[in-house]
């Protein structure tokens, strides 16, 4: 034992690998591919909505685009991208030789390409792809669904299995593989946020599996979970789905919080203001996320007591999230701040995520949600938190750690160009959606009445700009990998802290086979 192999050569390195860095890389590229595909679907949506009237696609196909866009972005792009990050970074951050269960790690990854091949192939099936929205409410997704729903259901099953295994792996790694001296309260925040995220995943993914299983039964085995004629209730589906779905949105954002909490101190050259309170805030958000799910269902006709309970609980989430925001900006206060690309993305994150959080808080107010619900105001809200939140922080993470991963520096000017195009494009796309939403434009419609025309056109233009920014991103990353300036300083950034920066650059294939001692 103990001999240090390099990576295997050729294809088998990637197919059979058990190395956390290789698997991280696979996850990252897979998620980027999904981001492009999901983004292409979004472009179809925006092109059709460019002006009133039906121009490019049929209403039926439009619904498939909306559905697949949501599904692919959430499950294919964002979640795997952060799992990829976790794979690369957690072992390096806690001083572990690898993930706790390396073979299972590879399995978690390989299930994903299959799941998404199955899901996307439904586009070519008779009756078309799933067309019931990423939230797949019954009975539109059961009695009235196209046959491809069966493939979709099993796809969700194995995708869920992948997430559960991936999370168990992360939990086992964090709990069991920390280097001597690396106590819980010394772990980098990114590790903390992932530990809590993994816990959320293990808790709610099985519930999603339960939801799709009941759908499968209703469709193929004559049960009546979601059918009143047999004594069931369509709204029951929504409760089960959102019991998963709400924690899911924090699953998306918590690792992003982690990333930002690593990068802001690095470029402020000042320790994070309140480490402990950050940890407690993350835990509180996770706890609250289990008892707020029905804020997605204010209009389904819940009893008023339920309505009020869920409203109060949802509003409470603003408190721990506020603690996070305040901590980030107080970390900047009296620092020595420089504005490299990762920092720019993090600043934009704090700015835009907070705006998205405010619109979230507005949505949380049940009576006002009577007007907001299922309008473009909601669409604006969740793109502010998910695109300017998760995607921006992911961009920041890539620029920040890429030099450590491949030993080459990205081009700062091009990084900045990417940032500004993305920042401007993003806001042009999604800010006007607040307006049309408030003015009464429902979501998930392929065509709209004339008063919404102007803002929609602006929004579409912005979307094309933002899409263009992603091409820049891809170009930047590839250029860095093949032709970036070499760096060999272990500490790529002068303000960076953490075990990963004690390793040589680029990080060797195997690290910490003998654990470091953390003081």
């Amino acid at each position, binding site marked *: *034992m103990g001999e240090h192999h390099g990576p*295997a050569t050729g294809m*088998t*390195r990637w197919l*059979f690998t*058990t*190395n956390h860095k290789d698997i991280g890389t696979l996850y990252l590229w897979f998620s980027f591919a999904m981001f492009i595909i999901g983004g292409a679907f979004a472009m179809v949506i925006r092109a059709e909505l460019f002006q009133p009237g039906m121009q490019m696609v049929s209403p039926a196909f439009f619904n498939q685009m909306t559905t697949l866009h949501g599904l692919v972005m959430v499950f294919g792009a964002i979640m795997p991208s952060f799992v990829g990050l976790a794979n690369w970074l957690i072992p390096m951050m806690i001083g572990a*030789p690898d993930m*706790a*269960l390396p*073979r299972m790690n*590879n*399995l978690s990854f*390989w*299930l994903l390409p*299959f799941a998404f091949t199955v899901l996307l192939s439904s586009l070519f099936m008779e009756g078309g792809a799933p067309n019931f929205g990423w939230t797949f409410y019954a009975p539109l997704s059961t*009695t009235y669904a196209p046959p491809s729903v*069966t*493939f979709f*259901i*099993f796809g969700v*099953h194995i995708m869920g*299995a992948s997430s*559960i295994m991936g*999370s*168990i*792996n992360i*939990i*086992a790694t964090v709990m069991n*593989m920390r280097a001597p001296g690396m106590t819980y309260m010394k772990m980098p925040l990114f590790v903390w946020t992932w530990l809590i995220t993994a816990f959320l995943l293990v*808790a*709610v*993914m*099985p*519930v999603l599996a*339960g939801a799709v299983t*009941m759908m499968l*039964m209703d469709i*193929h085995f*004559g*049960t*009546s*979970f979601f*059918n*009143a*004629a*047999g*004594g*069931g*209730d369509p*709204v*029951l589906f929504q*409760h*089960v789905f959102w*019991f998963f779905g709400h924690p899911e949105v924090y699953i998306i954002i918590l690792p992003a919080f982690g990333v930002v909490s690593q990068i802001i101190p690095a470029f402020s050259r000042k320790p994070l203001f309140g480490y402990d309170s950050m940890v407690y805030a993350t835990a509180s958000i996770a706890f609250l996320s289990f008892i707020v799910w029905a804020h997605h269902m204010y209009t389904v*006709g819940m*009893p008023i007591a339920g309505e009020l309970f869920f409203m109060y609980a949802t509003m409470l989430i603003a408190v721990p999230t506020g603690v996070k925001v305040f901590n980030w900006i107080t970390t900047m206060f009296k620092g020595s701040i420089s504005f490299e690309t990762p920092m720019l993305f993090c600043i934009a994150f704090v700015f835009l995520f907070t705006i998205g959080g405010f619109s979230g808080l507005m949505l949380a107010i049940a009576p006002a949600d009577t007007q907001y619900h299922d309008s473009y105001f909601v669409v604006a809200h969740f793109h502010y938190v998910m695109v300017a939140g998760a995607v921006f922080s992911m961009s920041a993470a890539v620029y920040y750690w890429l030099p450590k991963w491949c030993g080459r520096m990205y081009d700062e000017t091009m990084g900045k160009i990417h940032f500004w195009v993305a920042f401007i494009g993003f806001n042009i796309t999604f800010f006007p959606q607040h307006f049309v939403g408030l003015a009464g434009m429902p979501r998930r419609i392929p065509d709209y009445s004339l008063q919404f025309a102007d803002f929609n056109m602006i929004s579409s233009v912005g979307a094309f700009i933002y899409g263009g920014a992603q091409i820049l991103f891809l170009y930047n990353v590839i250029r860095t990998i093949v032709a970036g300036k070499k760096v060999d300083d272990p500490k790529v950034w002068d303000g960076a802290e953490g075990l990963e920066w004690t390793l040589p650059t680029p990080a060797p294939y*195997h690290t910490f*086979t*003998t654990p470091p001692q953390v003081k």
Partner: protein
Amino acid sequence: MAGHNSGADTYYVPEQSKLALALATSVAVLILGASIGLNGRTFGESSSWVLMYVGLLAFVVTLAVWFSQTIKENRAGMNSEQLKHSYVLGMQWFIFSEVMFFACFFGVLFYVRNLAGPWLAGEGDKAVTNLLWDGFQYNWPMSTTPQEAVGGVASQVPANTGTFEGPKQEMKWSGIPLINTILLLTSSVTLHFAHVALKNGKRRPFNMWLAVTLILGFTFVAFQAYEYYEAYNHLGLTLDAGIYGSTFFILTGFHGFHVCMGAIMLSVQWLRSTVGGHFSETDQFGFEASSWYWHFVDVVWVGLFLFVYIL
């Protein structure tokens, strides 16, 4: 630490493995096959299950190879104490995820019985709903579905889709379910005896108690199969018997499936002990993991017995 199992001092990271890709591929074939088969059955004229069986076979074989490899590695002394602890954590969190899976269905049962059912019958906050299902009375087990209350499938009321005929009779707790409860609870005890015996290094009693556990477990499964037969043929309690049938079968069905999985896991451990002579006082993770699983399945049954059968 004794014997060949003494922990290695580095954390063993296998260099490469074909297993993961093989397993993922077989799972993909399995679900493709299942989808094609089910869709053929529901929407088409004929259905083919060949692909599903191919996938299933590949899945089972790969899984078997995978586990035997980890067992070999452990016996070869490649697993450090730390690695063993990773397996422990893995199993514990896996069981936690299973807990949440069942929690979901118990939640469904709770919702249907306390909220949706009464609403449909004109009780509680959404009593106006009864406007649609004139004459529907709520009681549990729901022997008359809302559809039947308004005159069956042909009745032209809105949202009257599907065909649901309530069961003629409910499933009583006092017969087979009670026996099954006793069987399963006893099996948890015998399993515990086996565990104690193993910890004390007494292999014969271990094998014996484990065998007893297995017999109890399989008897449970047999009884449950008989119960299903009864339900379908004499009680009219079927999957399409409305929400009572739906919740009954999803809860007992997934539970039964888990009992089978647990029993298979324990059988493997029994074979490992009797044929292979595996396990020692200190190294018995394969058995321990299976036994945790078994106890978990047992606890779920208690919930089931209470909420599905008795209450």
